[in-house]
């Protein structure tokens, strides 16, 4: 990035900036040249930052009242709901906030998949993003254990038991994770500690994620490289800040709808039953955002195989930049890949649905089909389609199709989608 030297206007500002260039950083973020054709799928980065801060703030407040002991945890959550001033509000924001966080992250990821944001030179941004996603799943899983309801306890039991599938050292690792001979108080205590820690790791990775982004700059719907700054870009403030604010407010309306009018619809009623190690719920299910991986896990009859495939489903994403052989970034100009993209979306939704169903009969069959297709999409479709596909012609610049009245109506339409 070659910013011209920023000179602070005030003497105090200059004094501070000479010692810690905060004002230079501020100017960089304010002036940061952003493609002017970004559509609303690009607002989810800002929305995700809001989600992370919301979870951290509400989480710290909840931790002032929550008690991480097996005998007291469930009661402490009820204490928060009933006695703590606005406790019900803070708790419901935190529990529904987790769902909203994942809704936003999935939209954000699927944006990248469609527009090729993971492709060179943005591979590291993509990889850091996946690390953030992994940490999000770990934090969410552990957070769900804390109320110590039936699903908390049994979900923890099922998932921690997976580690015993590892040959030779599996049993020891599982016992080590538990701190006991089953999920018990030691497990709860350490999950609370780690649950408090992980969001700050995520915060650090988010800083790296944005830093790595600012090197090449944002991708855009047309997927072409653009000069910055130019007539193809706008300064981040006020153009993008106001657009992100608008999108965030729409997101908050949906969030508020859940918090105030349907705060438990995304959860499972069994988690309002205190944990009982002697009674297993009829159907153990994780929260909705983990369902596709749950389906993949259960589609393999072998325990170790299921674990390998489940983690594999995430790890394959890490090598996506190298699996995708296409020279064209954006699916806007990739008519064949576009079909497969939507099929992939359908596949993930179907896997999610199967994850909520018992692993038997037609549900198991479809889960297996879905799992096979999931991997086929990355291992077969991405490389092959990239090589063989005849892509549509891409414009030379973002403004060009509008100025020169380009023949391709598809291009013009995408360009006008900026607002």
């Amino acid at each position, binding site marked *: 990035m070659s910013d011209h030297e920023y000179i602070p206007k005030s003497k105090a500002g200059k004094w501070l900036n000479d010692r810690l260039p905060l004002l230079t950083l501020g100017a960089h973020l304010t002036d940061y040249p952003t493609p002017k054709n970004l559509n609303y799928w690009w607002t989810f980065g800002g929305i995700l930052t809001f989600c992370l801060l919301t979870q951290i703030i509400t989480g710290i407040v909840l931790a*002032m*009242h929550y008690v991480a002991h097996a005998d007291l945890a469930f009661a402490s959550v009820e*204490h928060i709901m009933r*006695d703590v*001033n*606005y406790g019900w*509000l*803070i708790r419901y924001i935190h529990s529904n906030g987790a769902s909203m966080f994942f809704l936003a992250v999935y939209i954000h990821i699927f944006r990248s998949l469609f527009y090729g944001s993971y492709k060179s030179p943005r591979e590291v941004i993509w990889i850091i993003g996946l690390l953030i996603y992994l940490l999000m799943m770990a934090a969410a899983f552990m957070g769900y254990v804390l109320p110590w309801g039936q699903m908390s306890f049994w979900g923890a039991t099922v998932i921690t038991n997976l580690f015993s599938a590892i040959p030779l050292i599996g049993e020891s690792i599982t016992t080590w994770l538990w701190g006991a001979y089953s999920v018990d108080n030691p497990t709860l205590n350490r999950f609370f500690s780690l649950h408090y820690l992980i969001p700050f790791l995520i915060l650090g990775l988010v800083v790296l994620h944005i830093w790595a982004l600012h090197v090449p700059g944002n991708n855009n719907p047309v997927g072409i490289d653009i000069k910055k700054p130019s007539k193809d870009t706008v300064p981040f403030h006020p153009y993008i800040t106001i657009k992100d604010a608008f999108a965030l407010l729409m997101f908050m309306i949906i969030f508020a709808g859940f918090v105030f009018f349907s705060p438990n619809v995304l959860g499972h009623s069994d988690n309002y039953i205190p944990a009982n190690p002697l009674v297993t719920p009829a159907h153990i299910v994780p929260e909705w955002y983990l369902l596709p991986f749950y389906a993949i896990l259960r589609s393999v009859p072998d325990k170790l195989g299921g674990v390998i495939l489940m983690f594999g489903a995430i790890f394959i994403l890490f090598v996506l930049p190298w699996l995708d052989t296409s020279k064209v970034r954006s699916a806007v100009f990739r008519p064949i890949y576009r079909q497969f993209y939507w099929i992939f979306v359908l596949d993930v939704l179907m896997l999610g649905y199967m994850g909520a169903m018992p692993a038997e009969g037609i549900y198991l069959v479809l889960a297996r089909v879905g799992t096979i297709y999931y991997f086929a999409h990355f291992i077969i479709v991405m490389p092959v389609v990239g090589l063989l596909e005849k892509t549509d012609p891409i414009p030379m610049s973002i403004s060009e199709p509008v100025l020169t009245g380009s023949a391709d109506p598809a291009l013009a339409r995408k360009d006008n989608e900026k607002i």
Partner: protein
Amino acid sequence: MSKEEKKVNRRDFLFTASYTIGAVGLGAVVWPLVHQMNPDKAQQALATTEVDVSQVEPGNSITVLWRGKPVFLKRRTQDEIAEARAVSLTDLPDPQKDEERVKEGKDEWLVMLGVCTHLGCVPLKDKGDYNGWFCPCHGSHYDVSGRIRKGPAPTNMEIPKYEFVDNNTIKIG
């Protein structure tokens, strides 16, 4: 006003309005985050306590826990009351008449926070040079009205808000 100026005014109004309404929302969000740290409803429910004092003989006292602190309820004899009232105010580091520390018509009853006003220890009853309480931590002496007489404590032991629900019951807080 020219058309350009009119446009600028409308734009400024819109932005100002947005910022203002946004700030109001931010304030509304901050309040619950702050207020949650205030005593919750369970704490507030324990904020008052009723004490049955029917079993306390003159000359004796009981101690109860209220809001996490000890409260001394002493039923004084007539001699003790007279002794308290005979003290000259100039002898007191924190001048206060005994009458001001009790309820009218209930002079027998001394209800006070059993917390030394020096650094917060709990004074021992029926000890000290003034027939009252003695704090072992740093040697403060309190008299039969709970007033500081000698030692590092700056003020008399605090009288909380209380009232007689009936002759046998005192409600503290």
